[in-house]
């Protein structure tokens, strides 16, 4: 009796070991980043896949756990919003990389470069003559209605004439294999530290998958960031003093702030470390005041100077806007860039590219309906169950309606919201994001992913080959945000 059980168990174990990791993987009806169809591996992915298949499940699992432990020990954590105790969690990491072949990347790079140039020209225009409005390309009321538009800064020249220095554009790939820009994050895009740390963790835990893989390195990001900060310094003499301004250690991205500051070799400061005297910004050090030339700020506009914006903010620096207007300090990103990543303005980015650059957009937008336009609104209300509805000024997956999975009550709720405040809502068709094999409960299963590359605009446009691939770990889910159960993957851009 006993021996038969034992034999059965042993047989089962043999089966488990004999099964290859990706055997039976089902790409489904979506675009799959690794498989062109069931059993057919894309050529760019075959090497790495073979290397994974040489590992036993146990070994894979053990190394995956080592990655998690690495993140925990290093304190690579984020703080959960709306939690008074400031609970820290690690961002789940999946070891199967997302692979982008050289020619695809080349196209993405060209499209993103075109886009950030147009966005910066747009911001310059909006804060000066508003030619694009006069020429009837973007209606005035959309500009005025954008929550993050700062009309009080019209007429001001910013250092280097750069507004968005760091852009984190979210890209998704549809069933057709085409990349679309889903949104441009031009205020305080975060996540770059995960791009770097994911690569470190994967290299440490799975070194052999890198051999002969032709993966382009990403570790130049902090250097490029520092170069850009130096470039925008308003003072030419000497080495500019750059600082990273953090809201403080309770912010969800605090780890990233520390990480980037350390990697760049610049000080990480809080508002109370800075003081403005005679329209110059200084930091308080134990050796006295030291002048600051460039601030890489990770605080929202509203909080950055209590004498101008929110009066009760203790996170900001009183008088900072005076120094900024006087041209004595550069801010990255500039104040008021939020008008460009407003989800309504987003709809006009392809038009901006045509208007300012006389070029056709390389990367398309996702088709977008504006509830403020009568025709669009009618379409949205008629097709609510098929659409994704988003609030114009929310991010992180908040304030969103997923039509196909929404309950009747949720649909009704959004119908009311759209009718009450049409300027604040847009609608888009559901794009079924591409999927990538992801380790789930010891099995490889397809999970939806997006891609956020980081674009740096200094003396030239630099995009580190890679980005943050976020993955919706829940089966079938299209929401990749870390606040909503998302994880991440290392992103490989291959050399030719």
């Amino acid at each position: 009796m006993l021996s038969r059980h034992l034999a059965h168990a042993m047989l089962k174990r043999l089966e488990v070991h004999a099964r290859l990791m990706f055997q039976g993987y089902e790409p489904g009806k979506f675009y799959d980043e690794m498989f062109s169809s069931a059993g057919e591996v894309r050529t760019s992915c075959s090497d790495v896949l073979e290397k994974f298949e040489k590992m036993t499940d146990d070994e894979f699992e053990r190394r995956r756990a080592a990655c998690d432990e690495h993140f925990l020990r290093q304190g690579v954590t984020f703080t959960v919003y709306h939690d008074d105790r400031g609970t820290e969690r690690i961002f789940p990491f999946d070891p199967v990389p997302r692979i982008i072949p050289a020619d695809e990347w080349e196209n993405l790079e060209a499209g993103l470069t075109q886009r950030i140039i147009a966005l910066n020209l747009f911001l310059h225009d909006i804060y000066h003559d508003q030619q694009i409005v006069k020429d009837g390309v973007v209606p005035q009321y959309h500009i005025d209605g954008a929550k993050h538009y700062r009309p009080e800064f019209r007429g001001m020249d910013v250092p280097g004439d750069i507004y968005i220095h760091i852009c984190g554009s979210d890209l998704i790939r549809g069933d057709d294999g085409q990349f679309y820009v889903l949104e441009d994050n031009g205020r305080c895009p975060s996540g770059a530290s995960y791009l770097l740390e994911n690569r470190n963790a994967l290299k440490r835990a799975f070194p052999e998958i890198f051999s002969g893989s032709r993966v382009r390195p990403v570790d130049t990001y902090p250097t490029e960031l520092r170069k850009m900060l130096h470039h925008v310094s308003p003072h030419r003499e000497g080495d500019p003093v750059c600082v990273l301004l953090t809201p403080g250690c309770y912010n969800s991205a605090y780890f990233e702030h520390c990480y980037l500051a350390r990697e760049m070799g610049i000080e990480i400061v809080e508002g109370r470390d800075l003081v403005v005297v005679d329209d110059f910004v200084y930091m308080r050090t134990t050796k006295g005041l030291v002048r600051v030339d460039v601030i890489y700020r990770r605080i929202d506009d509203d909080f950055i100077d209590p004498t101008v914006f929110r009066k009760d903010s203790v996170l900001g620096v009183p008088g900072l806007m005076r120094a900024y207007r006087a041209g004595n300090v550069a801010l990255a990103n500039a104040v008021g860039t939020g008008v460009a990543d407003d989800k309504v303005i987003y709809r006009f980015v392809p038009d901006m590219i045509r208007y300012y650059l006389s070029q056709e957009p390389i990367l398309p937008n996702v088709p977008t309906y504006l509830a403020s336009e009568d025709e669009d609104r009618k379409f949205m209300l008629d097709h609510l169950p098929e659409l994704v509805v988003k609030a114009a000024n929310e991010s992180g997956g908040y304030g969103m309606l997923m039509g196909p999975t929404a309950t009747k009550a949720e649909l009704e709720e959004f119908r009311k919201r759209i009718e009450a405040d049409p300027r604040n809502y847009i609608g888009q068709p559901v794009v079924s994001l591409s999927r990538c094999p992801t380790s789930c409960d010891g099995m490889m299963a397809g999970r939806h992913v997006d891609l956020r590359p980081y674009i740096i605009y200094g003396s030239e446009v630099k995009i580190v080959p890679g980005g943050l691939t976020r993955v919706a770990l829940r089966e079938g889910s299209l929401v990749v945000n870390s606040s909503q159960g998302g994880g991440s993957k290392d992103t490989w851009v291959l050399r030719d």
Partner: protein
Amino acid sequence: MLSRVANSLYWMVRYIERADNLARLIEVNERVLLDFGSDGREETFWRPIIASTGDEELYFELNPEGLGSVVHFLTSDRRNPNSIASCIAQGRENARMVRDQLSESLWEEINSLYLFVNSDASQRMLQSNRADYFSALRRGTFCFHGIASGTTLRGEAWAFMELGRYLERADKTTRFLDVAHFLPPEYADSSDHWISILKSCGALDAYRSLKPGPVDRSGVAEFLLFEKSFPRSVAYCFDRIDECLHRISGTPRGGYENSAERLAGKLVSELSYGTLEEVMEKGLHAYLDQLQSGINDVGGEVFDTYVLLPDQLETTPAVEVTTVSAVAAWQMEQEQQ
């Protein structure tokens, strides 16, 4: 170095030192109670402890029913900002703010100390086996100091960390000595009491090797105030404080460049040339009181000189009074796209 960073390093170490001292004090007092507390005299022994830490008022506000919750109040009650758990949490909070300045292992140690005082295991220890709790805690703080000393560059950061440690220690030593003031005289003058004070400072063996004979008030006071070779005496602490301050400013010892150095120098000379007779003439309690305000003044001047920088600013920044949690809420609110 950023003033805030200096401030955080200083407070990080101060809070750990505070937790360590508190643990010693409670542990020793509990043992004393085993000998003397059987006849309902708990109050006689616990009240001086919370009086000496300065939290008597808060205690009775939170526990109007009496002294039954003292140990909880001093160890794991987060409503008491000076409880062991609160001190460790604040120390770790300060460490988090200067995470980029600390060695990996130092951060891990303070983090695990924090996880320990918040764990169910430590709560169980407090219920059933307090000696284990205190010994784990003491090991943790020793480990913290050891790693700090073994991995920190001897630069400005280290000077501010030492400053925090010795200011806190000097303050706590004076408070230990002052416990007698709150005790009934028949016990305050017993050698049992003075032995327990020496134990709280980990000083009994050191004392015996220098001073044979009975342990009494004057002997212990002289030892803990003036004995320059004992690392918890006030004189030793102030020698270190004075040295740290001059290392930070780069001026030679014996002179001064700012009021922190001037005040510290004055205390050093008082502790070098003062005598036990002068102390007793003045009264031990009055003398300690004066010493404590001297220590506070040095701390205040360090803050003004290196953190607030009033000399270079016409006005101090208008930081409005808000609670810590409101600030934390704002920090969390900052959207990171």
